[in-house]
């Protein structure tokens, strides 16, 4: 009987590629011999756009990198610019940033869990996780005015303070959420089909995972104890008590329960931050970085000038360069920013975890079965907006 290898195209329009990812698979029967991923369908030139706008304007574009966890992107970018400016932001702002970043991590992981399970065939989880995600998005709407692409953080702090209603609802959420996590778990953790589809699939050793540049839960699934929040603490992460869950086998199943465990940890972080939340300002008191309040602008000429300069010329960042890594839900989001003493970034390189994870896709998918491909796309937790930029 004649046998031959077959080339199969998957995507870019395919429901389980989580965006516009195109895969070209070389298959020998059921086995994948080579999986080439082609990206760039969502390339918007954010790095180029950032060079042509002011530092503040870039935040709007940065939101649209990983569009399901916009706030953590803003967090990463604002930290980078603040490091170049050499400023530290008020403590209350650090706490608020940590709280919203962890809320965003929960919502991102919930969306991931929902779609990952849906791809593999467990549809019910989707309905439950979206219920809790809704609570978080409603809170974001209350705080920032938007559910996605929030544009909430500013260079030098955050744009709006938490309201009593927000804090009360978030406390309530922290109480109600852990039992819900158990609820999702009972649906899939010991489900035989789920285990069959995830255990022992796409195994990668710790050494190889590091070599391929994996980060975040995808790396920790292989047992590498590295989390930017612990290694290079920022925000309020070093002031609260939490642990980094680690896997052992480095398969899809380990990466799954690590993300579920991170939901518990994020809830812990939020609750402690709310308990410790200090009083004080939420923006740095420096008119060269943060626009003065509206009342002042309407009454004082000096404030009006500051605001005019900030909007027309941008924040003046001293010459220098910095690489700043932040732990976002997907992994290490790094910004390499070069400033030439003007109001625009001279070069902004975005090191997106999804891009790097997709680079390792061929390694994970090779020798797997065709049916496992969507499990592997799910497990590396990609968002194409981020990988294509």
């Amino acid at each position, binding site marked *: 009987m004649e046998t031959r290898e077959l080339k199969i195209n998957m995507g870019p329009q395919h429901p389980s590629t989580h965006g516009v990812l195109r895969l070209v698979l070389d298959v020998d029967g059921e086995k994948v011999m080579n999986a080439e991923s082609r*990206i*760039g369908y969502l390339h918007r030139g954010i790095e180029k*756009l950032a060079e042509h706008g002011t530092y503040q304007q870039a935040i709007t574009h940065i939101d649209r990198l990983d569009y399901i966890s916009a706030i953590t992107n803003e967090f990463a970018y604002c930290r980078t610019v603040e490091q170049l400016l050499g400023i530290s932001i008020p403590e209350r702002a650090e706490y608020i940033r940590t709280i919203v970043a962890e809320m965003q991590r929960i919502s991102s992981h919930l969306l991931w869990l929902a779609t990952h399970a849906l791809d593999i065939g467990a549809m019910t989880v989707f309905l439950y996780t979206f219920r809790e995600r809704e609570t978080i998005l409603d809170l974001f709407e209350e705080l920032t005015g938007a559910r996605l692409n929030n544009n909430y953080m500013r260079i030098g702090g955050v744009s709006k303070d938490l309201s009593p209603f927000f804090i009360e609802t978030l406390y309530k959420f922290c109480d109600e959420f852990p039992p819900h996590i158990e609820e999702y778990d009972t649906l899939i953790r010991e489900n035989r089909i789920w285990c069959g589809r995830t255990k022992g699939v796409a195994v990668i050793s710790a050494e190889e995972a590091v070599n391929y540049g994996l980060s975040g839960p995808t790396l920790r699934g292989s047992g590498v104890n590295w989390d930017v929040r612990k290694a290079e603490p920022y925000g309020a992460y070093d002031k609260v008590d939490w642990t980094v869950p680690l896997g052992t086998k480095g398969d899809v199943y380990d990466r799954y329960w690590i993300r579920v465990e991170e939901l518990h940890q994020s809830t812990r972080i939020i609750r402690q931050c709310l308990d410790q939340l200090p009083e004080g300002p939420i923006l740095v008191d420096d008119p060269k970085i943060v626009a003065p309040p509206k009342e002042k602008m309407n009454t004082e000429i000096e404030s009006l000038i500051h605001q005019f300069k900030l909007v027309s010329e941008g924040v003046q960042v001293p010459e220098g*360069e*910095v690489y700043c890594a932040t732990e976002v839900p997907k992994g290490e989001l790094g910004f390499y920013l070069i400033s030439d003493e003007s109001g625009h970034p001279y070069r902004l*390189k975005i*090191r997106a975890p999804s891009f*790097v994870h997709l680079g390792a896709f061929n390694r994970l998918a090779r020798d797997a079965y065709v049916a496992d491909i969507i499990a592997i796309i799910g497990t590396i937790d990609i968002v194409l907006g981020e990988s*294509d930029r």
Partner: protein
Amino acid sequence: MADITLKQNEQAIVDGLKERLPDLAYALERSCGQLALVVDRKDVVAVCAALKELPAAKFDYLADLCGVDYLGRRDARYQVVYNLYSIPLNHRLRIKTNVSEDDCTVESVNGLWKTANWHERELYDMFGIEVVGHPDLRRILMPDNWEGHPLRKDYPLKGKGQREDFSFVPENERRPARKPVIKSEEW
């Protein structure tokens, strides 16, 4: 270079590197507390290999690799930047190398860190810097038939890649190519 004081772990890295590569020419830079090592283009792979192995360095993780275009600002137009991180020792180091416009090539570090594969493809796509020894050097974000390298400073922000410029649009439906509305130098 003289005004840079090295921290203990940085001194150990530099000493180890000197011992391993005695003839190495390098310069040190510091910005925002982060140390950068500027080396010659031909030494990049040797330096990276040494930094990966040295017990004082152990840079097992290539966090990022990217290009920078210093058009009209420096003698060597491009710079390629490697951001290294060590997971066991929790420290970072930046390697930089200058690439001139006449000989726009750099050697691949794909043999050391597999993650470099896609980063180097992006470097080629965005800046047109050829990566010697790369297993699969193609464009990655832009279409294969794209002309030009978007992140070069002389590439305009607007005016390229209008739909009617694509070859798949029939000849009679194409409009004459529009002139760029905004010139990059004006911005």
